């Protein structure tokens, strides 16, 4: 037995045996947990049964948190690089420094930049600990920079999923109403079967639904996770979901004719009259879009006529122009998407497309109602949902809209059993009514979200203008996380649009930028241009090669968070049941010199003289009122700010101390909150009238600067548009790669967790490239062979192939984001495939509307000889 080094002796006061309530953050699902601490050491993590978030149970990651917390490879002290040369794999020559030295240097640079132009500072955050990172929402505005972004998360994750879910369902994403849904169509999503928002709670709800008899049809290139549990797996060529969804919409509208006419009249902009130029015909006085009142056979503003009398079809003369209701334009437009056309593109047989659509139409039970807790509601127990897998393509926006359109045609939107936004409406915290939100009608009667993840909701949209943000989101106004932070085009545009400043300094919070966006060389270039990078991290990862000062973070078992599940549209279970409000609190002492990052930010604000601004930002972010507001430039500890936030929302007797003991409080949801759509007088856009005009406005600014906007993406009617990979037809480039989120891993950091890594090594898919057995045998490959994938641009990755029947013959399924090469993560190093190495980060591969990155690529496969 080789000699085992004793663990570092950390004096632990024998504090006996207690279970401490807090919140898991190995992913942003933020399930409520209880941590068993014995004599100062955390020895078990379990779910907190008092909370509806997880209901006392955790997924595989949640229970494995200890091996990340106590990983000996954790960064434990502040360090400064001594080797000025930066590059992949070049040793930065770390030397330990004190917190004071680190903060003085960072604060000095902040002061200089803030004097010149605070926007020279950009901030990059990991999505993993999204809600725990709330203090950044105060630090950045306090300092004065608007250049804030999620490391790859948004770009890969859900730019379009979030935007379109916001426009149509007033929430961050959509789900089937598991409790009542009888027929769920999954397009490129796992919802309740692998990872993502509320994955743990969704698993329970989806399992209940499956046992109750909900039929699941999963459209996915791979039969893993959701498709494995489905009643029917519909294999599909990668990235062609929109063609299938539009063909199904066509069958619904033009073959079966099973439409929820009252819904389309009252809840969509279907009745709005569209003139020859494709825009609304507007009332001369009120400028409101006009509709045709069939009772009085005259055009009236939408907010004057009764929806019941509005025409959805026909042609009319209004204000001297001939016009038609937008619905008929959509209905006609859909006709070109015949099932036969879709079969050609998607490889899904036409008769399956017709059968599935007929099943969906029948299960939707158009016209039926149901009584829930005494409230009569529309009953549409069928849902078509989608998420990251579907929208990870250049046609992201339309891909997502095409799927959600299926629900709109049968009225299955935010009612019982239907497609749901997560928690789009909330009455507020009992007794104080704080934090409540309700979707409502905005300009032109179209729906505005009740609440949003940030402060630029999807509607109403600002006007595109000459950009002053590095990500150019003030020009691409429907964009969210942006490629222009790191892409070459971004720099060229800053130049040509004479951006008043250039990025000089980056502060990173846990994001592994080198692995989470695209190929590593390109990202390395963009990082090397920055003068100074400071980074809060758990481990020294691939990005650390470019960092100047690394600061040790306490991690989720050592941090405060008063809003782990807020806003409820992000990480709280949907559907009927309870609301829960939990907190996150430090559970164990640090193993080294780690500090709570929020207090570090407050220190920095003090040293760089913007503490009063940061306090004002905290007041704004937490919406603190009365004596809970932070005063002037007084220095608060983050613990005090948390106490103020909780008292502000829950009253003085329920501050931090109350929640530290209680952990979580819950109260019941009402049917009106969960099934809010009939109670909200607002319409959703199924005809995106503003798009052509918006495209032209953007082109007017970006065109002269050398970036042309492809107008087919800015059309008012939803279309299938191929990705670059579909048009790559070099010979023997015959596989489409796609990546999916493994249930065992979160983004790129849990591969270092020894338990999760061990489980992933045993999993047939986690660290392998899944290939169809027949496709593999045809190429003389055997299960376990080492193969190489190469894109047309010459990007290469290697990995072990796993031959399986459970994948489309042209698909290569890879779990992301593995393939570490950093020495600071020895367990993770060399495990799995660095998928993003295959990706380019340029305008041809970015969705021109929401700036989502196209994640599929066409590759050539070859076996790697091993001696």
């Amino acid at each position, binding site marked *: 037995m080789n000699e085992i080094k004793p663990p570092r002796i950390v004096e632990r006061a024998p504090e006996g045996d207690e279970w401490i309530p807090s919140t898991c953050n190995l992913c942003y699902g933020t399930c409520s947990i209880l941590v068993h601490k014995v004599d100062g050491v955390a020895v078990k993590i379990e779910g907190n049964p008092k909370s509806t978030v997880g209901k006392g149970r955790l997924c595989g990651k949640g229970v494995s948190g200890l091996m990340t917390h106590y990983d000996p490879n954790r960064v434990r002290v502040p360090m400064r690089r001594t080797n000025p040369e930066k590059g992949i794999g070049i040793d930065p020559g770390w030397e330990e420094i004190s917190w004071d030295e680190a903060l003085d240097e960072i604060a000095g640079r902040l002061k200089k930049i803030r004097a010149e132009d605070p926007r020279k500072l950009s901030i990059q955050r990991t999505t993993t600990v999204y809600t725990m990172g709330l203090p950044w929402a105060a630090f950045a505005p306090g300092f004065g920079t608007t250049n804030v972004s999620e490391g790859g998360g948004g770009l890969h994750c859900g730019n379009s999923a979030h935007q379109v879910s916001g426009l149509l369902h007033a929430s961050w994403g959509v789900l089937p109403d598991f409790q009542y849904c009888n027929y769920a169509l999954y397009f490129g999503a796992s919802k309740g079967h692998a990872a993502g928002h509320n994955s743990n709670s969704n698993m329970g709800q989806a399992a209940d639904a499956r046992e109750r008899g909900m039929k699941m049809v999963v459209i996915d290139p791979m039969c893993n996770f959701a498709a494995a549990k489905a009643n029917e797996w519909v294999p599909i060529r990668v990235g062609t979901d929109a063609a299938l969804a539009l063909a199904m919409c066509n069958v619904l509208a033009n073959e079966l004719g099973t439409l929820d006419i009252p819904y389309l009249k009252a809840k969509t902009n279907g009745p709005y009259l569209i003139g020859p130029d494709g825009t609304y015909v507007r009332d001369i006085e009120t400028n409101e879009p006009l509709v045709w009142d069939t009772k009085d056979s005259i055009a009236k503003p939408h907010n004057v006529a009764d929806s019941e009398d509005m025409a959805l079809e026909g042609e009319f003369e209004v204000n001297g122009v001939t016009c038609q209701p937008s619905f008929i334009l959509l209905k006609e437009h859909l006709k070109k998407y015949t099932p036969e056309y879709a079969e050609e593109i998607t490889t899904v047989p036409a008769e399956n497309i017709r059968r599935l659509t007929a099943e969906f139409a029948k299960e939707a039970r158009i016209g039926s109602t149901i009584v829930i807790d005494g409230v009569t509601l529309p009953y549409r127990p069928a849902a078509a949902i989608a998420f990251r897998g579907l929208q990870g393509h250049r046609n992201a926006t339309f891909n997502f809209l095409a799927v959600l359109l299926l629900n709109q045609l049968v009225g299955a939107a935010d009612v019982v059993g239907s497609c749901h936004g997560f928690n789009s409406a909330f009455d507020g915290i009992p007794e104080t009514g704080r934090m409540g939100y309700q979707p409502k009608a905005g300009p032109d009667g179209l729906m505005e979200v009740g609440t949003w993840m940030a402060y630029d909701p999807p509607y109403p949209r600002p006007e595109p203008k000459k950009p002053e943000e590095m990500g150019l989101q003030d020009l691409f106004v429907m964009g969210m996380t942006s490629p222009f932070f790191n892409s070459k085009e971004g720099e060229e545009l800053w130049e040509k649009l004479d951006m008043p400043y250039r990025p000089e300094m980056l502060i990173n919070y846990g994001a592994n930028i080198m692995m989470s966006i695209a190929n590593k060389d390109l990202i390395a270039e963009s990082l090397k241009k920055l003068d100074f990078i400071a980074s809060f991290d758990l481990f020294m990862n691939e990005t650390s090669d470019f960092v100047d000062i690394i600061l040790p973070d306490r991690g989720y078992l050592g941090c405060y968070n008063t809003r782990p599940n807020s806003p409820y549209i992000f990480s709280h279970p949907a559907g009927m049941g309870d609301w829960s409000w939990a907190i996150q609190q430090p559970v164990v002492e640090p193993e080294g010199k780690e500090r709570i990052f929020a207090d570090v930010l407050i220190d920095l604000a003090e040293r760089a003289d913007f503490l009063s601004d940061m306090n004002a930002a905290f007041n704004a972010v937490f919406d603190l009122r009365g004596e809970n507001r932070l005063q002037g430039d007084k220095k608060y500890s983050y613990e005090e700010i948390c106490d103020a936030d909780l008292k502000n929302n829950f009253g003085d007797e329920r501050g931090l101390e109350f929640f530290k003991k209680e952990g979580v409080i819950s109260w019941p949801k009402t049917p009106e909150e969960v099934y809010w759509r009939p109670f909200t007088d607002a319409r959703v856009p199924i005809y995106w009238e503003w798009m052509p005009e918006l495209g032209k406005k953007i082109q007017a600014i970006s065109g002269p600067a050398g970036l042309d906007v492809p107008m087919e993406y800015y059309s008012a009617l939803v279309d299938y548009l191929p990705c670059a990979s579909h048009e790559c037809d070099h010979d023997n480039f015959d596989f489409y790669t796609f990546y999916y989120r493994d249930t065992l891993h979160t983004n790129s950091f849990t591969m270092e967790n020894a338990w999760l890594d061990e489980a992933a*090594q045993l999993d*047939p898919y986690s660290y392998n490239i899944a290939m169809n057995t027949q496709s593999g045998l045809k190429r003389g490959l055997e299960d376990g062979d080492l193969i190489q994938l190469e894109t047309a641009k010459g990007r290469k990755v290697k990995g072990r192939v796993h031959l399986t029947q459970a994948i489309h013959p042209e698909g290569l399924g890879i779990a992301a984001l593995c393939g570490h090469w950093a020495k600071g993560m020895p367990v993770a190093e060399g495990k799995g495939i660095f998928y993003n190495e295959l990706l380019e980060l340029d305008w041809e591969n970015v969705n021109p509307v929401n700036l989502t990155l196209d994640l599929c690529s066409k590759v050539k496969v070859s076996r790697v000889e091993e001696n």
Partner: protein
Amino acid sequence: MTSARYDQLINDLKSEYRPQREWAEGRGAFLIYGHFLVGVAAGGWLLSRYFGSFDGMVLSYLLACLGGLAHLVNLARPERALNMMLRYKTSWVSRGFWGLTFFMIGGLLYFLSRSEFGAPLGEGSRISAAGDILAIIGSLTMMCYMGFVYTASKGIPFWNSTLHPVLYIAYAIRGGIAVLVLTLALRGQELGGESGLLELWIGVTAVVIVLWVLEIQGAVSSGDETAKRSINDLLAGRLAVYFYGGTLLIGLVVPLVLTTGTIAPLSASILAVIGLASIIGDFFMKYSSIKAGVYLPVRLPHLHR
């Protein structure tokens, strides 16, 4: 950082058919040596006793000691070896332990009682008789228990055929003969016609071959994919070298050819070679069949082939 054996375990757990390495690699190899030595010793003692070859008995006793030692090395906690006496009611391994214990004690008493250096007990005394009986009981137990250990291992389908115990008995006898032949050869004695040892050896070898063929045929026809996988590993896989080289060539072809006397007259040295080759053949027979053990994969019933 990760130990090679741990990586091997992970790869094994990933593969559909997982080879058993518990009694094959690392300290597990000593289990094979132990079973081999104890088997030969048991046969050796009985046959030597029957043919009255004192040398054979001494050699067998030494082999048994070595076998016992090997078994101890196989144990991860040898200091608790005596616990293995407890569950003789159900455990074949425990019965084997008792067998070896009886044999060791019996053999010792037997030697002490009639050794040339005139121990007080003298031949024919009750102690010597007790020793003799104990040793016989011990070696019979050692000979018979071993096959049942494998038959009882439900996790390895290849071993579960009922022929296994008979096969191990046959091994023991063949080993015994080989020990006798070896001791005679070492004494430089020519093999007298009367002993018929060689004929007996050929007969037992034939029995072993028949049992082997039956067992392999049984496994193949049983339709049990796992057993077939073991045989595949044995005849065409990772253990083919040991099987063809060790068991067939050295253990069968060489001695058989030599016994015909065509190559060379049955001189003492040839006898020694025959004996040794036979023993080596037995070793590789056990070595390859034990290492060929493959775990029954855990599968849903309707998927189990």
